[in-house]
């Protein structure tokens, strides 16, 4: 019997090799998540919640009870397929950025390389850019921003685009040296945006020209969204530093070193900066000096979703799915453990924080009580 078994094993050794290799590849691949899914945050306007679902739709819900009002599928684009579903191909348009609303139009960018303006009243697409059915930009990961009749967004082709908000006509573009995943921040007539070329740019929103004599350069990629607070720009980088820059000239005021990447936008409150990091800590810094006000709060899991200010609490969610409220005395309180991974930016309205999870679940959490309701968007 023994010899028979060994003979079979020998004869099929090559088969074993294939099975083990492909098995390892498959298991590992599916664990690590090869396909883009999206992690859209949301926006609430006049009691209506707008959110990008993982089905590639812009969904409108009643913010109070979660009733689905309508949805628009962005597009099925660039069909492709890999073995085991692990190749970076997609058929839907994953949405990473938070939709923004201006008047009757909701703007949302897709990983398929198009930006859409969807009419709230018509419940249909008003325009898309690029307009051609077969024309696509590189993936759009950051969200759009609307100001002064224009919509601005960064793209993986390394460009910042400005389009007419009503028509979608091209206004200007600015080329950086690498891809952009950051959402722009606008303060007055200046747009701030980071790039994978490790630089932070300040652009004139009318002309698209650089406003600083030279962009601010860090040692790592900038994928987070800048925070502009009290004439200072706060930006985190993959070099593990959080920088405070003079908003007018881009001169560094201070820098703070953490243990991992700064992926999210920090929050400012009462001259204190709350900066979550992928090392699982929330750093609480003096906005003027960069000194730690208190020791960092260790949440035990990376924080990749941007926090939100609700009343006088900073609400933070960890990747592992736990939602915390940090009060002004810097005490953290665990609100709820959703037991689903969280990457999407948090958003809030009327004392309720909304959490979009990695399993396309949407939860409304009362910040005071921690009471949680699940809205059905799946």
């Amino acid at each position, binding site marked *: *019997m*023994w*010899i*028979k078994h*060994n*003979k079979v*094993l*020998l*004869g099929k*050794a*090559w088969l*074993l*090799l*294939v099975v*083990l*290799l*492909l098995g*390892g*590849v498959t298991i*590992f*691949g599916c664990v*690590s*998540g*090869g*396909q*883009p*899914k999206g*992690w859209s945050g949301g926006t609430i306007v006049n009691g209506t919640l707008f959110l990008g679902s993982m089905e590639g739709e812009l969904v409108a819900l009643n913010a109070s009870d979660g009733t689905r009002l309508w949805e628009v599928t962005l597009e099925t684009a660039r069909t*492709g*397929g*890999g*073995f085991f579903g692990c*190749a*970076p*191909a997609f058929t839907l348009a994953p949405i*990473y950025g938070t939709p923004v609303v201006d008047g009757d139009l909701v703007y949302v960018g897709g990983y398929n390389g198009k930006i859409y303006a969807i009419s709230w009243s018509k419940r249909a697409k008003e325009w898309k850019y690029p307009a051609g059915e077969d024309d696509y930009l590189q993936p759009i*990961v950051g969200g759009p921003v609307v100001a002064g009749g224009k919509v601005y967004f960064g793209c993986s082709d390394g460009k910042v685009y400005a389009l007419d908000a009503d028509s979608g006509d091209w206004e200007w573009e600015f080329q950086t040296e690498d891809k952009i*995943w950051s959402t722009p921040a606008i303060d007055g007539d200046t747009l701030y945006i980071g790039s*994978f070329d490790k630089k932070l740019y300040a652009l004139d929103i009318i002309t698209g020209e650089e406003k600083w004599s030279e962009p601010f350069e860090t*040692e*790592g*990629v900038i*994928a987070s969204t800048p925070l502009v607070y009290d004439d200072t720009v706060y930006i985190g980088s*993959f*070099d*593990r530093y959080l920088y405070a820059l003079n908003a007018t000239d881009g001169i560094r005021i201070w820098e703070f070193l953490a*243990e*991992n*990447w700064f*992926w999210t936008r920090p929050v400012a409150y009462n001259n204190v900066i709350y900066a979550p990091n*992928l090392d699982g800590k929330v750093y609480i810094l003096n906005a003027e000096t960069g000194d730690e006000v208190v020791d960092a709060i260790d949440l035990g899991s*990376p924080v*990749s979703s941007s926090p939100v200010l609700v009343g006088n609490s900073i609400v933070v969610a960890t990747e592992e799915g736990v939602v915390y409220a940090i009060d002004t005395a810097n005490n953290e309180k665990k609100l709820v453990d959703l037991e689903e991974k969280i*990457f999407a930016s948090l958003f809030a309205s009327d004392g309720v924080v909304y959490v979009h999870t990695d399993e396309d679940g949407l939860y409304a959490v009362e910040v005071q009580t921690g009471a949680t309701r699940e809205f059905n968007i799946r």
Partner: protein
Amino acid sequence: MGELWNLIISLTLQPMINILIVLSNWLFGSFGLAIIVLTIIVRGLMYPLTIKQLRATKAMQSLQPKIAELKKKYGKDNKDKLAKEQVRLYKESGVSPAGCILPMLVQMPVWIALFWSIMKVLAVTPEQFLGLSQYLYSWSVVYSMVPLGSTFLGLNLATGNFLVAIVVGGTMWAQQKMVIAPAVDPKQKAQSQMMLWTMPLMFGLLCLTFPSGLALYWVVSNVITIVIQYFVTGWGGLAGLIAWRPSGKGKLAGRRPSIIDKLIAWGPSIRDRKYKERIARVEEAPSAAGADIVEVSSAQEEGLGDEEPRDKQQDRGGGYLTHLKAIRRQPRKGKGHRRKRR
């Protein structure tokens, strides 16, 4: 289970990811070069196991005629006897069937870790990129290098490429062709043909959808395997495709050998010389000197040494191939223990 998983990650995947990034920094920021160098390093570390596996496979192949004889002799009527005789044959010839499989199994986690470290570092989607942050060591060079440039020799390492897929399939086919033993039995022949084509086709197709960085790893890994196999077992099944051979039996036997021809011939000549030297050393050594056990050399397994034809070999007892062991264990003399071979 979770802790075991974390242990595997921290012992294999995490070091490889960080080494890849540091290598990229040293190699002019080229991720392609880093993949090539890391593949060579890992395959170098795995070399003893690879050699062991190849030699065991070769030894098993050399026993196939004898196994066929046994099958013919005992056939379907006496399967127990056949099994016993096969065990005896393996035992006497010093070949362990597990020797072919165990080294391969040991190497498997390392290959998979190397494969996935490349996949992780390529980090195409935002989810993959975010996940990469949890594998990085707190070295400033690592943080400042990410993400690595994905272009190498005009090739986008992050996307599939038809040409590279063909190269992967081709090198894998050559590698298979070298090791697959010529079969006489039609059933076995059909199986061999399937083996020869299935893997290259499958991996070629995979490479169309996987990032080319992985394909580059496969190409380098296949080429290394081919080189190692060449030095251990010769061209094997590829011999017929090589135009000129040292034996002078090829199609172009008459022409003057080129530099490439000489290089091709250089490997086996070095190998044969080494084996002959080893055999000569063993023969010259006095038996009382205690050279008790000598490892089976590939040359002997292949019949590359100066041995007699099998049908003229002296029967040394036992009834089966004993030539695979150059010198069998000598009876102990005195009360001393076995001395280590020097």
